[in-house]
Structure formats: structure tokens, C-alpha cells
């Protein structure tokens, strides 16, 4: 099972944000979207979450709209799912997650269990919340108020809530999907790697993970599939080594760089060619 995207067009007041996107996001793999600012990565992710309204129901020219029928989850068009049904199939980590009310970390993670709270008892619920907080290394912060946390701690808390949504049942026959919009933006290098390693581990539970990541080396280290976007079009998709070629990176980012893996002992990364040879500084 997978998310199938077929000739997806997203427009905003007549201007195309995404143009003729054809993509499959398989369950059991980690797919990462990369591209420069404004390439349409977040828009593509939002289209998969069901947040973008079909053109017929579009409110105005100031919100994005797409043609219905372009996206299918588990062989069913996105529009056929109700809000409740979708919530059992996919969990989303949005780019902004601020909150003006002083819930504790534990209360926020607990909210992720809302989707299946009728099906489990209190003890099971506490167990899930504990497990997920341990997973994200925020167990010690359980009673702290969300508003007092640092940016990275807040991001990990929201991630824990999103994971909690998919924690029950632990694994099931119907594939589920985890959609992450820049989940590492506020995190230090240890937690950046931890979160993506986690996402990869989650994908082994018949969950398809789609993430938007800016750091190319991070994307190279963890992705099963990479999708390189530029101005609303897919430039290249495939394995990291195939996508992170100098020609593509130069075309899309305007930098001279390439995929590099020293050996099996090191994670792959994207190395950038030093063009300051003619200008001797320091």
C-alpha cells in the first residue's frame, strides 16, 4: 500500500505552486523531499495530508487549491475519507506548533492518543505516553509547561504527540503514514539524527514516512527515496546517490556539490566544492 500522487497540480490564485507531480510514497520506506525555498516541498506535503482544498470548493484566490482525484491513500482517493478516518491513517507534524496555553508536556503528548482513546483503557494509554516520551528523550520534561521549553524541546514534544497518534495499534495490516514538515529545524545535531533514525525505524512498522528536510547530508544519510523539487516540478527522484549528482545540485541549488560516502563506516553526506581558490582569505 502507498500514497499515490498522479498528475497533481496545485495553484494559488492562478499561479501554479506544483506542476504535474507524479510520485509514489510507499509504506515501509522513508521518502524525503528536498529543494530550495519556494520549491513546493511543504505544499506537496500539505496536499498529502488533505489540507489543500479541491478547486471546486476553494474559498478564494488566496488559498491553494488542487484538482480532486490526484492523490490516493491506500488506493482510495483522498476526498473519500472523512476527517475521522484520515486521522486513523496518517499523522502530521506541521512546521509551526506554538501554543499560548500552559499545558504540560505530558498533557500534550496525551492529546495524540485522542484518535483511539475509546479503544484502550487508562493503563494502556499511560503506557503509550511513557513509551513515546522515552523514545523522544523528553521523559524528564513530563511535568514542565510547554511554554517554558526551548524551541528544540517544543519540537520534540510535538513530535512525540504525532508519534503517539500512530502508536496504537503498534503495527497493522492497513498502511499508515507519517508526514513531517521540517521536523529537524530547531534541533541540535544529535537530535536531528535521532529523529530521522526514529522515522526510519517507524517505517518498518508498515508506516510510510514523508519528510521535508533542508539539510542535504541528513537527507542523504537516511532517505530510502529522495525527491528533488525545483519551482513546483520534480527534477529527479530515486536513491540518494542518483539524485545528489553535481549536475542536478548545480541546476537546482546553484552550488557545486556532490554525494560522497567515504566508506561503510561513515554516513553519506553532500560535500561542497571550494570555489574560493582565486580569493585567498584569512
Amino acid at each position, binding site marked *: 500500500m502507498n500514497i499515490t500522487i498522479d498528475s497533481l497540480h496545485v495553484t494559488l490564485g492562478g499561479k501554479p505552486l506544483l506542476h504535474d507531480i507524479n510520485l509514489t510514497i510507499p509504506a515501509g520506506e522513508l521518502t524525503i523531499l528536498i529543494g530550495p525555498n519556494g520549491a513546493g516541498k511543504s505544499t506537496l506535503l500539505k496536499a498529502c495530508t488533505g489540507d489543500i482544498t479541491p478547486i471546486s470548493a476553494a*474559498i478564494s484566490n488566496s488559498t491553494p487549491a488542487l484538482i480532486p482525484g490526484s492523490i490516493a491513500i491506500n488506493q482510495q482517493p483522498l476526498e473519500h475519507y472523512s476527517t475521522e478516518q*484520515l486521522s486513523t491513517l496518517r499523522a*502530521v507534524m506541521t512546521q509551526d506548533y506554538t*501554543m499560548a496555553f*500552559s499545558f504540560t508536556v505530558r498533557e500534550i503528548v496525551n*492529546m495524540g492518543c485522542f484518535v483511539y482513546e475509546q479503544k484502550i483503557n487508562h493503563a494502556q494509554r499511560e503506557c503509550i505516553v511513557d513509551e513515546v516520551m522515552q523514545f523522544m528523550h523528553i521523559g524528564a520534561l513530563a511535568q514542565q*509547561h510547554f511554554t517554558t521549553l526551548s524551541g528544540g524541546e517544543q519540537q520534540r514534544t510535538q513530535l512525540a504527540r504525532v508519534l503517539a497518534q500512530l502508536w496504537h495499534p503498534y503495527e497493522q495490516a492497513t498502511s499508515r503514514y507519517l508526514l513531517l514538515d521540517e521536523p529537524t529545524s530547531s534541533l541540535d545535531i544529535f537530535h536531528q539524527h535521532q529523529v530521522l533514525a526514529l522515522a526510519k525505524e517507524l517505517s518498518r512498522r508498515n508506516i510510510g514516512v514523508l519528510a521535508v528536510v533542508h539539510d542535504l547530508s541528513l537527507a542523504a544519510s537516511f532517505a530510502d527515496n529522495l525527491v528533488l523539487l525545483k519551482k513546483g516540478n520534480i527534477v529527479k527522484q530515486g536513491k540518494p546517490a542518483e539524485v545528489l549528482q553535481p549536475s542536478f545540485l548545480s541546476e537546482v541549488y546553484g552550488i557545486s556539490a556532490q554525494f560522497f560516502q567515504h566508506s561503510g563506516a561513515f554516513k553519506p553526506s553532500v560535500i561542497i566544492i571550494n570555489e574560493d581558490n582565486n580569493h585567498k582569505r584569512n
Partner: protein
Amino acid sequence: MNVTSNNISTINDTDTKKDTGCKKQQRAIPFSLGLLCIITLIALASGAVPIAISDIFSSLLHSTDSALVDSSALPSPTLHSPSLNWIVLFDIRLPRVVLSIFVGAALGVCGAAMQALFRNPLADPGLIGVAGGGALGAVMVIVLGNSLFSQFTQTIGIYALPLGAMLGCLGVCGIIYRISNSQGQLTIMTLLLAGIAVNAIVGAAIGVLTLVSDDSELRELTFWTMGNLGGNHWALAFPVLICIGISLFGILRLARPLNIYLLGESQAQHLGIRITTLKKHVFFFTALAVGAAVSISGMIGFIGFVVPHLVRLLIGPDHRFLLPTSMLFGASLLTLADIIARVAIVPAELPIGLITSAIGGPFFLAVLYKQAIRLGK
């Protein structure tokens, strides 16, 4: 168990934190219920005609008997006529106290619901036009009741003023709802701006009506806007109690979804909450409850904003505890304010809106000051 010492320092009470709420939250509802009962008893006992508390209990217990002729239960001047205390208690004071409980509860819980709807602790029910609409309706009946609407006032009689206020409230809320409900989505920003705009227009309209009013009308509308719980017998109070009762029931059931809604609109939707339905329910129940409250008692400010704020400071933002506690606290506060209104300048009465603002304001400042000191440590 000294509940009054249950202060913010118990925040780090890690062992007792459960899904059913920490100690503070679990104690909040019984505590505020107890407070309400005590204040209700005091309210029934005090006023221009003091009644002993034992008399209250015996009157209430024997009210279904032929207590009118049971002179052993009540002090009674003659055998076959109701005693003064009985009349004061059942015809005047009980409806008034019950009203103050319900109106206070409505203001408290709807204030909390509004702060959730706008995802902002500074919101209050006036934002969606309830207060302004109610005032417009009432002022129109007062000023134009003898001229333009004389037919209306004559046919409806004593219900004219409350009905006018209720219609005004529903009308203004309806306009604001229509403006914000483009293509079925109640966008919060539009709701806020529409509320501000319509409230301004309504204010201007009330100003014009005030201008054309004569002295007695001016006096009447001024006192109406300052709020008054008195002069209402059961016939007037009953519809209001029913409206408020329905809304309270409706809002209390929204506690869990409202918690999740605070995460953000799209976040709540991803978790399976139909946010447009939720917003519409909150809007409707608030308009109904606060509209009914304003129609019978005029404008009573401050409670809808401060009570939920205060309760949130004390027991946290979880609506499963915040909503019931705000309800009970609001009821207690308003009943207490009404006691002061009736007793302070006996035999005259103070307008209750003045009391809630004049006493509530400094009280809230004191709480904030203590908070600031505690956080400053």
C-alpha cells in the same frame, strides 16, 4: 485538607499526575461547588429582610406542604396568610438567587469557551456581539417602546424588555456569524474583525438612541446597562434558566475537543476533530447563554473575562476541569456580588455591573501581583 493553601507551588507534583488530573484539578470542582452552596445560603439569608438560615431550611422543606397554614413551621402573623418571610424567600429572593447562579455560571463558562475559540486568554463573550446586541435591543425597547414599537410592547407586556434584548442579541450575533461564515468555514480572524466592526456600529446606534431619549428613558437605559438582577419573578426567569441550562450542557460536553483545538486548527483537524462544527457549536451556545443572561440582567461585565482567566491560573488550561470550575466560580462570584448589591446601601440597591467591575478589578490585580512575585522568585 486546607484547600486555600493549594497554590501554584504544587505544580511539580509529579507522582500524583494522572489522566484524571492532578490534585489541584481534582479538588477544584468539589471546592467550588462547596463555595457555591455556602454563598447561596448566605444569599438567601441576607438582604433588606434578613431571614435566619434555619428558617430557610424549614421553609424549603415544607414548601410542598400546605405551609401557608402551618404556623408551627414558620413565624406567621396570621394563620391563613403567607408570612412575610415566605413571600420574600420564594417570590423575591429565590428567583433572584437562582438567576444569579445561572447567569454567573453562563458568563463564567462562556468566557472560557470564547477564550478557547479564539485560542487567546484575552477573549470574552462580548467579541461575538452578545453584549452589544442585547444592549441595542433593550435600548430600542426603552426608547422606542412607546412610539415605534408600542404595539410590540403592548402585546408582549412585561416580556418586552428581555425579549427585545434577546432578539437584538440574536440578530447581531446572526449578522456577525453570516459575515464570518464564508463558504462554510468560520475563520477566526474574520470573526474577530466582524465582531469589532459590528460592535462599533451597534455602539453608534445606541448612541443615537440615547440622544433622542427623554430623561426617564435615559435613566432607565443607563441603569439597564449597569446590570440588575432584581425585579424578576419566576415567569420571567424561567425561559432564561432553560436557555442557559441547554447551553451549559452543550458546552461542557465540548471540553475534550476544545483541549485539542488549542493545539491549532490544522493540528486538531489532523487528530480527527471537525473544527468548523466545533466552532459553530461554541458560537451558538455562547450566543444563547449569554444572550439569555444579558436579556434578563443587563450588562454584567468582567466575569466572562476574569473568572476563566483566574481559574486557568490556578488549575491549568485543561477544559475538563476549567469549564465546570469556571461555571461554579462564576456562579459563586455573581451571587456574592448580588449579596453586596442588596446589602451595601439598604434599602436601595447597587447596580451589579458596578460591583463586579469595581471589586473584581482590584482583586484580579492583586492575584496578578502575587503571581508576579512568585514567578520573580
